[in-house]
């Protein structure tokens, strides 16, 4: 066991050093910078690809058909009916809120 402790103590006393710390540090930082740059380029590439696909989709899709059908659907909507429906639903929900508040006061 003595030799075991001796070996451990001897190893503890040894201090290992990099061959060239300055160069090691410089090289590590260069690698970091390189990785950062490649990530940035990748991000830019993805963004450009997305933009390119969007442009392609816009230019080559039958826009006139899409806009035509959209306008047709919008014009088919009965605006007055829609207004009455909204008024009615808002009225009902308002009434519900008032009733709930009153109920809360009664049961307090």
């Amino acid at each position: 066991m003595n030799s075991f402790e001796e070996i451990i103590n001897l190893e503890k006393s040894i201090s290992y050093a990099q061959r060239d710390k300055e160069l090691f540090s410089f090289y590590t930082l260069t690698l970091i910078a390189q990785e950062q740059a490649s990530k940035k380029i990748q991000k830019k590439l993805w963004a450009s690809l997305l933009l390119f696909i969007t442009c392609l989709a816009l230019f080559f899709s039958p826009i006139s058909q899409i806009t035509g059908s959209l306008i047709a659907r919008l014009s088919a909507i009965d605006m007055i009916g829609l207004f009455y429906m909204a008024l009615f639903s808002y009225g009902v929900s308002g009434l519900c809120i008032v009733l709930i508040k009153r109920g809360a006061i009664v049961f307090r």
Partner: protein
Amino acid sequence: METDEELVKRALKGGNHHYGVLVQRYADYLFGLGMRLTGGNRELAEDISQQSFLKSYAYLKSFDSRKTYKYWLTGIAVNCFKDMSKKEQQYTDLAVGSEPSYSPQLEGDTGFFNLIKPLTEDEKILFTLKYIYEYQINDIAGFLDLKPGTVKSKISRALEKLK
């Protein structure tokens, strides 16, 4: 002199040169750890220290300042060593026996390296961290994501092997 935590904060704000100070500060420490874990293989030790610094920078945002930077870096280095050992193992499995093999030049005092030779990679890590760097069982368990009881039993098994 700036503390490690201050340097980490500054590096996170975008100052790579602040991280450079940390690299210089812990280059020898990680190299020494690498040398001990690899049994004196200088090239592997350099690779481990470099990979550890690269990983540490990549995950710098997740650094928990409640623990020291050195502690965090040690955990990363230990896991780098484990990954490298796994890769080396894969390559040796693939290598054909008749192929000329690369034998690394080993440096340093061979007494310790010979002592830990019969140990497995995991046991080498545990033994080195416990007896050379004098880390507590709980710290070692934290590095390796193990339970303290498991670490204790593995260390005692390693000691049995060395007897």
